[in-house]
């Protein structure tokens, strides 16, 4: 074995990567060559120092959270809710009735908060490269039929380009463990996601704006649909979007 060969193979010996035959050959060379023996000793020493030093990095918690948020979320289990209700059922009928009203209100707000956070997560996810749209089109007559058959209820798709919000496409998303439609608009360089899901409640519920993680979310209900519009544009502009959308919807229904 030449020194040149040994200078490479001694690393494999250090790393326990050699089979018995080759290991013996390298060891024999090292035993007979002081230069290679010195190199081997020096490299072994360096490896020991390196092994004693923590050279790894720890991923920041925010990175872990971002990656978690980008994965489809399993529905969160809420075993506590049932046990709370069972607890009330054991009380008197009157107090149970009174209490369940309170519980229902509390739970609904809890749910809404959770759904709001899911909506904002879905919005964040959509901003990552290649995630914004499943169907890309500025034409409402292309985007609307794309949803057909993919969802129980296809979301209304309305082109608002003339009103300052450009339709850019549509996407399937998951909120509250259900597939729902998202219609994507742009205002200048800002993305507006409009999430639409079905609800048994056909009453009109007035829009409300909430803020989470720096995003504005305007939520309202109409014609048996729940809407959430999410964006980083200002609350006033988002309200304008919702007004324009509702006005166009009304015109469509009446027209």
């Amino acid at each position, binding site marked *: 074995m030449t020194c040149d060969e040994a200078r*490479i193979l001694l690393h494999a010996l250090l790393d326990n990567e050699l089979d018995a035959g080759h290991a013996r050959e390298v060891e024999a060379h090292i035993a007979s060559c002081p230069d290679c023996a010195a190199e081997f*000793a020096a*490299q072994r020493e360096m490896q020991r120092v390196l092994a004693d030093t923590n050279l790894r990095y720890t991923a920041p918690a925010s990175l872990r959270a971002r990656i978690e948020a*980008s994965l489809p979320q399993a529905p969160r289990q809420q075993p506590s809710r049932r046990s709370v209700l069972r607890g009330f059922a054991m009380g008197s009928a009157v107090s149970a009735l009174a209490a369940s009203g309170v519980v229902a209100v509390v739970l609904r707000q809890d749910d809404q908060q959770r759904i709001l956070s899911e909506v904002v997560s879905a919005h964040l996810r959509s901003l990552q490269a290649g995630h914004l749209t499943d169907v890309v089109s500025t034409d409402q007559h292309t985007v609307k039929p794309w949803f057909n058959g993919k969802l129980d209820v296809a979301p209304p798709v309305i082109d608002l380009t003339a009103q300052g919000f450009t339709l850019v496409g549509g996407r399937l998303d998951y909120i509250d463990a259900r597939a729902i439609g998202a219609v994507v608009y742009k205002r200048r360089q800002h993305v507006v996601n409009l999430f639409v899901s079905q609800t048994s409640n056909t009453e009109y519920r007035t829009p409300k704006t909430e803020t989470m993680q720096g995003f504005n979310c305007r939520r309202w209900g109409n014609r048996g649909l729940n809407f959430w519009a999410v964006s980083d544009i200002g609350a006033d502009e988002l309200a304008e979007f919702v007004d324009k959308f509702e006005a166009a919807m009304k015109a469509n229904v009446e027209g």
Partner: protein
Amino acid sequence: MPVNDDLQKAQRFREAALPYLDDVYTLARYLLRDASDAEDAVQECYLRALKHFDSYRGPAMKPWLFAILRNVCNAEYARRAHRPSAIEDTPGAAEQTPIWQESEASPETEVLRSRDAGAIRKLIDALAEPFRETFVLREINNLSYREIAEAVGAPVGTVMSRLARARAMLRAAWTAEEEQAK
């Protein structure tokens, strides 16, 4: 139901891939030498990995994730190359570095002083590619030669010679610094 399939897939992916987040992030830090670029690269790596998770057949998750991360980082390097301030690696010059250098001090007596992690990281960061990558995969990410070969798409022989050169260069830089400190 497709929704459930997606959720199940995501859950399997979470269990298989997320435990290696620190490993992937560590490699990204050494490849890109920038904390925020590394974060972006790791996030993109996991998105791509999830997308291709259906076609993942093993054997080991770690080299598979590393191979994806390399592709992301190479794209980042290509992007940086368009910037005037791009950090230029010169593997050409590094290839000419002799595998060992005669040191004047008697090698037997030469004991490396323990250094703090920050100083050693700096020495590693100064290694040229592809030697830095091979060195980090072996010494910090603890991959076997075969796994490194798989992750970087090179023969095991190439991995071996790169590793030998990387360690020779690192030791030379290390001792040179100690000489200066004297």
